[in-house]
């Protein structure tokens, strides 16, 4: 097969091109979130040899499989504690967790709040597609109230997490939320998050046309329209006002950027290691 110039992509050096095509469905937002994350990695100027990506399980969890860095595709929900071990064993590493909402906030919810509490120096990019895509579209901890999924056939009786509030309340020192449509803001946020010492959390709202969209009769383009029309950018909004409710409108922005609190590694070194006098 002939390869032409047009087939190369500016992100190729960061991609395992021998693993493309990827598994993501047409119209899925994860690819955009992933590319944005890679762009931010490039933009931030961090040493990429010293950068590792960790994923859990799920559609977004496949991210680690496509990045040409040290990359670890771990068990369901455990990306954050795995990343914690990686970081503590070699604090020089930049550790990026790229995974989905089910992985990070449901089965991995306990790890999420504790890593935030410790202000563990990792960057968590959470792709929120409002359901479990990989397994065929079941209800998640982020599914809006009354939305339909295969396990809530008449509508979700529960309420979704306000993930930025959860992160903030647990102690995260960088918190932002964007959609895949807000590529520039998202790149900026992930770049800032990568350079932020301490626990940084970026939630990326992303369409899953194949499961979430289809079951809720939202056409792929309409989901993007919703992302544009039903969102409001309010940087520094109060974390309690960030409910995932499309009827009220979803607030996007950068909500927390606290550079005063020392990171987990700094505190451990200062508290537990013998100090030179």
């Amino acid at each position, binding site marked *: 097969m002939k390869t032409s110039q047009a087939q190369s992509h500016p992100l190729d050096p960061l991609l395992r091109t021998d693993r493309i095509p990827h598994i993501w469905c047409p119209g899925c937002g994860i690819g955009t979130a992933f590319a944005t994350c890679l762009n931010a990695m490039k933009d931030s100027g961090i040493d990429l040899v010293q950068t590792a990506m960790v994923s859990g399980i799920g559609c977004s969890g496949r991210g680690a*499989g496509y990045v040409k860095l040290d990359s670890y595709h771990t068990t369901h929900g455990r990306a954050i504690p795995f990343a914690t071990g990686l970081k503590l064993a070699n604090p020089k590493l930049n550790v990026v967790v790229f995974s989905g909402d089910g992985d990070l906030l449901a089965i991995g919810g306990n790890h999420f709040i504790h890593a935030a509490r410790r202000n563990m120096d990792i960057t968590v990019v959470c792709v929120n597609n409002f359901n479990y895509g990989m397994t065929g579209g079941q209800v998640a901890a982020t599914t809006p109230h009354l939305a339909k999924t295969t396990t809530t056939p008449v509508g979700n009786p529960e309420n979704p997490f306000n993930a930025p509030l959860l992160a903030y309340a647990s102690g995260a020192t960088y918190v932002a939320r964007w959609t895949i449509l807000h590529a520039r803001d998202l790149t900026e946020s992930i770049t800032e998050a990568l350079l932020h010492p301490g626990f940084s959390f970026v939630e990326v709202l992303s369409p899953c046309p194949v499961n979430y969209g289809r079951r809720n009769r939202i056409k792929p383009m309409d989901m993007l329209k919703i992302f544009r029309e039903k969102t409001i950018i309010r940087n520094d909004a109060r974390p309690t006002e960030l409910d995932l409710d499309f009827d009220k409108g979803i607030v996007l922005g950068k909500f927390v950027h606290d550079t005063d609190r020392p990171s987990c590694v700094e505190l451990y070194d200062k508290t537990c290691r013998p100090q030179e006098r």
Partner: protein
Amino acid sequence: MTGDEACAEGALAAGCTFFGGYPITPATEIAERMAARLPRVGGTFIQMEDEIAAMAAVVGASCAGARSMSATSGPGFSLMMENLGLAVVMETPCVLVNVQRAGPSTGLPTMGAQGDMMQARWGSHGHYEIIALAPSSAQEVFYQTILAFNLAEKYRTPVLVMTDEVVGHLSERVVIPDAREIQTVYRPRAKGRKDRYKPFEPGERGVPPMAIAGEGFAVHMTGLTHDERGYPVMSVECQEQMVTHLVGKIRNNLDDILMTESYRLEDAEVVLVSYGVSARTALATVDEARERGIKAGMLKLVTVWPFPEDEIRRLAQRVKGFVTVELNLGQIHLEVQRAAGGRVPAVLAGHCGGTLISPDQVLDAIEQHFSLSRA
């Protein structure tokens, strides 16, 4: 010092640099000592939010090059099974100590047992091989913890140290040799051209050299079935290749891994097979039986897994029978029976745990099942 303390000292002597833990009786003392000692020698201790996280952190730390470990007991051991499997499949060296207590479930938290031996073998899902050691005294805990690190690193595999509450809490004299006398092994390391390196291509002894995070090899590791590049491949062929490799790495190196000790076995007619704390009972029983004119001997399993079945098979050709002495209702006993192959009887002297087995119980088992010549 106690067995638990000896475990921490053994780990430090082996060069352990990372401990991810969670408190649980009767293993907590290991974490406590590591919390105090590790940061003073440049290592890191972290108490995680649960044992699932502890084991995940242990595997992550090992991928960043740390000599990494955790210690737990029954309920925590159950939670760690998930990421133990990840360590097997990612071929990540690490040590996990189980100070066994009586179960099932919460059981008897402060009382010993050996009921997790089959969980040690098969506790994580899927088919794999594992190395498990079983020390009988604080001194053995010290040495076997070092051995566990060395085997883990040499074979890029998790290694279990299956101690128990009695050994863990028993205070005994422990001799700690000079650091120069302690041999430590580190995993085979990735070398050569970074673009040609394959993270799971078998090297010497079938063990792939390991690239650690930050070295520039851009490794990919996954819990999915993967090829030598570490890339997921969802096929029967790849599954066969990967599992055969993982299993073969242990099975093809039995001569190096298997370790047993024997006591008065040369002319023995009945062989007590035991390990861990119960081997102390077995040892005392051998002498008592000999005093009664019964030719007893002991085969002590240092490595319980892999199981030394050839040795049992060979013994079965010349002895009159086996008594497995263990604190459960028959786990390793079944293995002994299997290896004896019906050639001679193999019976159990065991109970549900919570206290030790008395030599009398073992003697009764011998006398009940075997009519032996008296010297």
